[in-house]
């Protein structure tokens, strides 16, 4: 029984880690720019496809892991500069419409470019095997993600709380006008933040590629899950994204194991509970 609980917890944390990377991008973009990026799930999907393409060209997963997020980040940057930038001072709904439009465009583009069928990416040989955890086989790749997630989280924390640039980003998140009047080039900052958020989504996608079949609309589910994580953790909060994602993953895994009938409702029950008890989210700013 104990082994099952631990294995289930590992599953949950592994899922949580992937969600954390994606939600981190979403919450950073919202926190600094005030933009709810509906296309974030599609960027995740694009990260997976870019990884697929990199594998086809270079036959090297690590290179794919390097190149794919970069490509997605650059695409995100292009979207921000060419389109998003033009509507910052307009109504919020226009932003939502624009990012949603990109969701639709990217979903179809992917189908036109790579076809409607399913593609798979193999994990690198180093990570492809199984380890024995508590006497049971457990995929090495899942453990890799489990370790990588907090490592990335730590690096991000160090960046945001220990570097000058990170401090500037946090300042702009807290008060855009003040930061601007202090000389921060806010438009340029926004572009970099959108690049960064897209890069994270692409990284999530590239990491997910060996785990999940790559197909059109693979981002549709994860965007909803990321939104829930971000709201639970607190919109714009960096530690919130981490804790929220872990909570989501654990509840998901234990839900499947113990209460499969209502498992689908659990994320939404969590969401409702947080919104009722602490609407700003666990780590969010006072609304």
């Amino acid at each position, binding site marked *: 029984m104990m082994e099952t609980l631990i294995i*289930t917890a590992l599953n949950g944390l592994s899922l949580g880690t992937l969600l954390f990377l994606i939600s981190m991008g979403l919450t950073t973009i919202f926190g600094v720019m005030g933009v709810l990026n509906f296309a974030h799930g599609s960027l995740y999907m694009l990260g997976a496809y870019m990884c697929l393409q990199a594998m086809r060209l270079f036959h090297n997963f690590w290179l794919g892991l390097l190149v794919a997020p970069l490509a997605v980040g650059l695409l995100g940057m292009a979207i921000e500069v060419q389109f998003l930038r033009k509507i910052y001072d307009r109504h919020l709904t226009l932003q939502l419409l624009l990012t949603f439009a990109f969701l639709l465009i990217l*979903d179809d583009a992917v189908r036109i470019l790579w076809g409607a069928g399913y593609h*798979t990416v193999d994990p690198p040989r180093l990570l492809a095997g199984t380890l024995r955890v508590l006497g049971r*086989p457990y995929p090495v790749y899942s453990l890799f993600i489990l370790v990588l997630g907090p490592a990335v989280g730590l690096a991000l924390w160090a960046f945001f709380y220990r570097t000058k640039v990170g401090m500037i980003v946090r300042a702009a998140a807290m008060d855009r006008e003040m930061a601007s009047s202090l000389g921060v080039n806010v438009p340029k900052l926004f572009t970099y933040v959108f690049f960064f958020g897209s890069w994270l989504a692409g990284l999530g996608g590239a990491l997910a590629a060996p*785990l999940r*079949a790559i197909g059109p609309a693979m981002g549709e589910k994860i965007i909803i899950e990321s939104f829930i994580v971000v709201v639970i953790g607190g919109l714009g909060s960096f530690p919130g994204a981490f804790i929220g994602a872990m909570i989501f993953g654990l509840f*998901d895994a234990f839900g*499947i*194991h113990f209460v499969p009938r209502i498992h689908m409702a659990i994320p939404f029950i969590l969401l409702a509970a947080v919104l009722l008890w602490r609407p700003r989210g666990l780590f969010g700013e006072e609304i």
Partner: protein
Amino acid sequence: MKGKGVLSVFILVIFGVFVLGMPQGAVAKKPLKIGAVYILSGAFATYGQFARNGINLAVDEINAKGGILGRKVEVTFEDSKAKPAVAIRAFRKLVYEEKVDFLVGLDSSGVALGVVPTLPELKRILIITHAATPDVTGKKCNKYAFRISVNLNQNVGAGARIAAKTGAKRWTTIGPDYAFGHQSWEYFQKYLKKLVPDAVFMEKVAFPKLATEDYSTYITSIMDANPEGVFISLWGGDLVNFVRQANAYGFFKKGYKVLMSLGAATEVLYALKDKMPEGVWVGTRYWFLANPSPTNKRFVEAYKKRYNAYPSYNAQNAYTAIYALKAAIEKAKSTKTEAVIKALEGLRIEAPVGKIYIRPQDHQAILNVTWGKTAADPNYPIRILKPMVTFSGEEVTPSPEETGCKMK
């Protein structure tokens, strides 16, 4: 006056020559129009693509030989987006705006259930080539709806027979959490219980949401419960994900007798390649190697040549639907819906899948159902079935009374 008279005659003559001299072709036979509605976008677009392939192949072959009753066949495709409301609108557009004569379609059982009751209003035949819910030729049957493909009952009926021979007694299931998954389990239990009276169906089952990406806890949870047999009705991308993830947990090395009701679908086998374990019993609605007939060989060759892949069941079913329409129209010598309905009822044709008989009582095709054990073969890039077990339609299809169809 003389001038006016001459002018009138002149005009009349010109008019006469013009009308009489018009070539036969200009008022000639209008094309025969078929409307096709499938999932063309989103996560399941691959199925619509396959259907399109099959239909285009059939139509080009038929047109090259002169069409149907001397008329060229034209097909218009519309996207159902896997939504009943969208599909109903698409069918209406095809019938009222495009003025199609016949309809084929439907991947999703949910969509089929929504569309079939609207057919009496449209007064057009719909040949279903994919949606497998028993209800469209069962509880919700009507005279306009036909199905040319293997349905859920038939596939699961065959699966139960395979399961009975495995010797496993404690069964669980992993299936998608909607009608298809639940009905597959329901019918599997019903049919297996008849063959193996002491079979036990476990409390612990798994019904992950459709398009779930992470199956890890479903996998570990089911393994924890120690089943003897596992009946899997996951399909498409979900099955691909499940198999890849289950491999990593050693799921296929535990000695479970595993059945996958749609594991022999080519899109799954192509995506998995050698990650599909060997020795798993898999089913499908058409297996390209099961029928040695010249009809099948020709179809498989033509399909492979044009599309560079072995034909999926969806492609074969759609291809056969067009040929079934052709046979019925030629038999009725008419394209009037009522006449073609009568011709389709009781129709027997030779399709790549084998001989098909369209049962008049419920309009369901009676045809062979093939299951097989996955095996590697150096001649093919995907797993093939060795051995193959083919069940006759009569053996695995419930009687019309059992289906609950009351054709009005």
